């Protein structure tokens, strides 16, 4: 593709996700990264020295001087709102890292504006692009384990395993930090995506192990008008997990599924010939169902999510798999958990 026809992208925030997304999206043949905005002089210096892009210390300056076709928002969550507002004014497609924003009302406003526009809007809940969870979704949508009754969504990591220093935005909930915003958001989004948004949140508990101002573990119960219910439990201070692990267990009246990012086990009450599942236990490994990606940096799902964003911009896909509206749904549940904990979970 000629350079002038390429989709011009700016990356706002060159932290952990910003630098990963840069590498992945730069591999796309129809994309050109035009600019990076990053307040850290140290990182900006390196980008300036080695990469062929315009650099800005302040995102406002970037928007004043140029209009990219799309932006990847990878800043701390409390800055997302101001950045995306600018993008709306200029008619720019937006991919925003999760959590969508740090404030529920801001999430509502952005969702409402973007839903009315023709602009592509996506939030980075990457599990929606994982091979195993996509399979689970296919099975649920086709009632492979019958009518859903009960579920459990869990996530563990060893991110915070000692007390003390936790500078930066991650140590404040107002800025979008803490185990709920940062990690539970993935487990909650997975519930919303696979099973549906809960009608009521109850029995929420937060645990404070090492962090001073934010929770290190969170659990909650989700209720549905249909009678279905489930729980979530997320802990980012568990050293027995070497890397972040998502697990989901779903019980239906036709069987039970246990899934993580790498494998899926299904107990079937009866044989299902269409899906090649026999009565009793069936195991599906990621090696049975993976679909390769053109360029791999950090798992197929990371590439697939950004290529999906580009496909939506190019009109090759018409429905975004994780729009602002989806991000808002997850944010609403997070907000319900905090409210429930303040009202009912904190014992005097």
């Amino acid at each position, binding site marked *: 593709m000629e350079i002038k026809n390429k989709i011009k992208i700016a990356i706002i925030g060159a932290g952990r996700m910003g630098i990963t997304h840069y590498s992945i999206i730069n591999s796309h043949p129809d994309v050109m990264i035009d600019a990076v905005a990053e307040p850290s002089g140290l990182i900006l210096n390196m980008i300036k020295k080695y990469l062929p892009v315009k650099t800005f210390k302040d995102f406002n300056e970037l928007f004043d001087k140029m209009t990219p076709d799309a932006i990847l928002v990878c800043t701390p969550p409390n800055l997302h709102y101001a950045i995306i507002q600018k993008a709306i004014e200029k008619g720019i497609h937006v991919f925003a890292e999760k959590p969508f924003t740090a404030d529920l009302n801001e999430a509502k406003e952005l969702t409402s504006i973007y839903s009315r526009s023709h602009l592509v809007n996506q939030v980075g809940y990457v599990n929606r692009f994982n091979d195993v969870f996509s399979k689970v979704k296919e099975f649920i949508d086709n009632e492979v384990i019958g009518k859903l009754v009960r579920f459990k969504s869990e996530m563990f990591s060893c991110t915070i395993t000692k007390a003390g220093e936790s500078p930066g935005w991650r140590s404040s909930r107002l800025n979008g930090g803490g185990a709920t915003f940062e990690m539970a958001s993935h487990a909650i989004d997975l519930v919303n995506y696979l099973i549906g948004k809960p009608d009521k949140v109850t029995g929420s508990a937060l645990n404070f192990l090492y962090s001073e101002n934010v929770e290190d573990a969170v659990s909650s119960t989700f209720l549905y008008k249909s009678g279905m219910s489930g729980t979530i439990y997320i802990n980012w201070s568990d050293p027995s997990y*070497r890397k972040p692990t998502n697990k989901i267990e779903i019980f239906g009246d036709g069987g039970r599924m246990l899934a993580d990012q790498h494998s899926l086990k299904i107990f079937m009450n009866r044989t299902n010939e269409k899906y090649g599942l026999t009565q009793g236990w069936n195991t599906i490994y990621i090696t049975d169902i993976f679909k390769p990606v053109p360029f791999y940096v950090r798992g197929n799902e990371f590439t697939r999510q950004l290529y999906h964003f580009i496909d939506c911009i190019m009109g090759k896909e018409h429905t975004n798999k994780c729009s602002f509206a989806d991000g808002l749904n997850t944010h609403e549940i997070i907000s319900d958990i905090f409210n429930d904990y303040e009202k009912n979970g904190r014992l005097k």
Partner: protein
Amino acid sequence: MMGKIDKIVFGDNQFFGINHMSQEKAQQLAEQFFDISNIYRIYNIAIDAGVNGIMLNSNDRARDICDFFRSDPARYKHLNWYPSIPYPYKYANLVAEKGIIPAINEVLFRDNNASGVANLIFKGGLALLSKDAIKMMQMLIDTEMKIFRGLNVKVVFLQNIITDLMLGYDVRTVFEEYCQYIRKKYKALPGLITQNMPWLLGKLKEWGINEVVICTSFNKIGYLMSPDVKSYIEAASRNDPENFQLMAMSTLASGAIPAKEAYDFINSQNLQSVVFGASSAVHIRETTKLIRI
């Protein structure tokens, strides 16, 4: 001319609870090898089966493992070492907790307390270093490589998370400087682990970077091989091993392919080496017999 690497190299994923296919299997392995003497026992079985090369990641337990091998030179001096750096989760967790710059700061300046050089540079601060990312990279390499001091290092591999991240950035200098530094400072061959082998090979040729060892997933089902298995077979068949030696990893696709079938495929490819991991004597002996490249 590039020195020849071992045809069979014994890997370490099995010891550290890594299994790409199943977290349950990974958990089992982590429990089995929690007692480090079980790790040494497996190494001895591999060495008795004829393995001469060992690939080891610079993770938390590598220091003890290297001490073990250094402690008995009569028995282990002949081994060739294939370190892979860095230990990605150390950085991932630090970066998640503190941010990129404080994480680098901690690794360089806190893990390096004894080093006078580090203290000196600390005076200029990270600001100085960031102007020279290459110098920073060299210091990070030295920090990781301390673990392997005194061992016979044949190749120093850069982990795929770093190689592939840098490959996406499309910056020649970083690759050039890495390879040069490994040759000069460690008198070893530069190695790159990747999950985008055809892409990387194309880029190295374009940049004129030669005599590199490339370690990459290689299995008949195309698992962890981007963009696809066909491109891998083509790239390997066109490759000149005098210029780039190819080492296959994930040959069994984390156990999805039976060993016989997996190595029938591997043996028919233009590959110079295989790195494999196994956690039992039976599998180690079986694999060393099956690899005929």
